[in-house]
């Protein structure tokens, strides 16, 4: 039986730092992919994910057990990603290096996989046309299968507002994909 988030948090707060590694393992995929969507480089995404988890560790004492852990963590990560995006223009020319590396990785990808990835690429491109919050909402709901309730907590909205926005976002996505002959 897996330990619940709250149990792990309690363990960490009692001084069992190793339990935090389990929290990182549990959520690193979601957080890393969130950071990747904001930074577009694996290098930055890895550094940002590390920063987020270190911040989470520092602020763990502020976590209220009344709320759910994942929305709390994701809200913190989302705010961090948004701040990072605002500041990214300050970064020096080093960014070019990493974006260049991403392109190199693309060219090295297996050609046979490209065909099957085309549909995903179109959806990813369509997702980019949504606002950041709508895109995150869609991905959290459908890719990471988080509940409407959790989304409501993360985006500070009512559950019906979340449903409405998801519905609109899917509509926007569909019309965007229609432009490239989806369905």
């Amino acid at each position, binding site marked *: *039986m897996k*330990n619940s988030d709250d149990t792990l948090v309690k363990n960490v707060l009692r001084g069992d*730092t*190793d*339990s*935090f*590694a389990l929290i*990182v393992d549990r959520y*690193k*995929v979601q957080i*890393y*992919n969130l950071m*990747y969507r904001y930074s577009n480089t*694996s*290098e930055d*995404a*890895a*550094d940002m*994910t*590390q920063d987020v*988890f*270190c911040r989470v*560790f520092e602020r763990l*004492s*502020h976590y209220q057990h009344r709320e759910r852990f994942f929305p709390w963590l994701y809200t913190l990560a989302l705010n961090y990603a948004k701040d990072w995006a605002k*500041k990214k*223009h*300050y970064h*020096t*020319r*080093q960014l*070019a*290096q990493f*974006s*260049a*590396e991403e392109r*190199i990785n693309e*060219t*090295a990808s297996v050609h046979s996989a490209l065909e099957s*990835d085309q*549909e*995903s690429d179109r*959806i990813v491109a369509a997702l980019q046309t949504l606002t950041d919050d709508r895109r995150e909402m*869609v*991905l959290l709901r*459908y*890719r990471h*299968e988080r*509940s*409407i*309730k959790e989304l409501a907590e993360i985006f500070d909205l009512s*559950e019906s507002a979340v*449903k409405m926005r*998801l*519905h609109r976002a*899917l509509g926007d996505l*569909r019309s965007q*994909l229609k432009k490239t002959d*989806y*369905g």
Partner: protein
Amino acid sequence: MDNEPQNSTEAELIKDLKSLPLNDVPHDLTDQVMARISSSRTPLLRSIWNYISRTQSISFRPIYAFSVILLVCGAFYIGRFSQPVPPQVATVPPVYSPVQPALMETPESAYMVGRGLLQADGSHEQALAFLKRASMLDPDNPEFAYWEGVGYWANGDQEQERQSYLRGIELNPKSIPLLINLGHNYLSNKRYQNALHTYQKVLAIAPEESVARYNTGLIYRVQGMIDEEIYSWQMFLQNNRTGTRAFRALQRLNAYNDFTFRAYTIGFRKIIVNHQTLLDDSLPEQIRLNELETIASMLKDHTYFGLEVVVFVENDLEAAKKRAIEIKHLIKNSGKDISDRVKLSWFDVPEFIQSQNGKMEGSLSESVLLFSQLPVNLNKETSI
């Protein structure tokens, strides 16, 4: 799971969304986070802040709140009657008038304003105007050319950016910042040969320059020049053992079955060690000791774990034993009192190396494997 109304097209789209590929998380991410956490100690001020900013449970009695309100109101009225009320003077709000680049008479002032604006959010166009002004007033200053280039880059004009760097390099052909940024510019535009040539100039001036070295490896990689790529990763790792780039370089190096450098898991951290140096007993002891320095320090700081040293020498058990004892001797000579926690094993077979996914990567006829043994209570079960 909550359900929303779906029609067939929507359901199809949702199905596609559910199967969107996710990016692979770096394999050492958890280790890196835990290493950062274990290495950072909470400063006193942070502890105080944590204490005062966390939610505290308090008991509340209305009478106390009423007393406080009464006290505040009383103080307010006493102050009102005892202090003369200062006359209120209407003030005109200051009018914001941005300085125009053309009004800047000295290149230094234009340069300073430009750099300041470059740091400010959303003022990159204005910053560029000042940086161009500085460059125009003093065209012989390579630093101004450099920052003009950065200004162009911030505005997405890579062609002009390159021209600024080239002009700066004419003035100072050995300027590392100018050469590095020019290299980045070429690399961004997939002009690999130009980028390579530029980075090589940087490395001729500063062989340990890590960004130029790393990007050189990338260029060789994309051009399929494996030997040169391997050499670049080796050179990069010689001076860079931490950070994501170091682990990425190591991963690529090891993928070519080159184990000159290896990562050893010690506690929660992965430490990159020059494995070749560790094996080479013809090298001075100090050089070999340097490779073990980080591990020895970690063992000293974390008294609860030990170090396992496993040596493989194919068909020569005696040589394997000798090498294992030699490594323990090296650790003992590090000056840290940890050798009693070092356990040795030796084998006369080659070491078989597996990749992360369990596939066989290769074998080494002579090798050293280091890892730490955590106490049982730290290896907690997470599921049953």
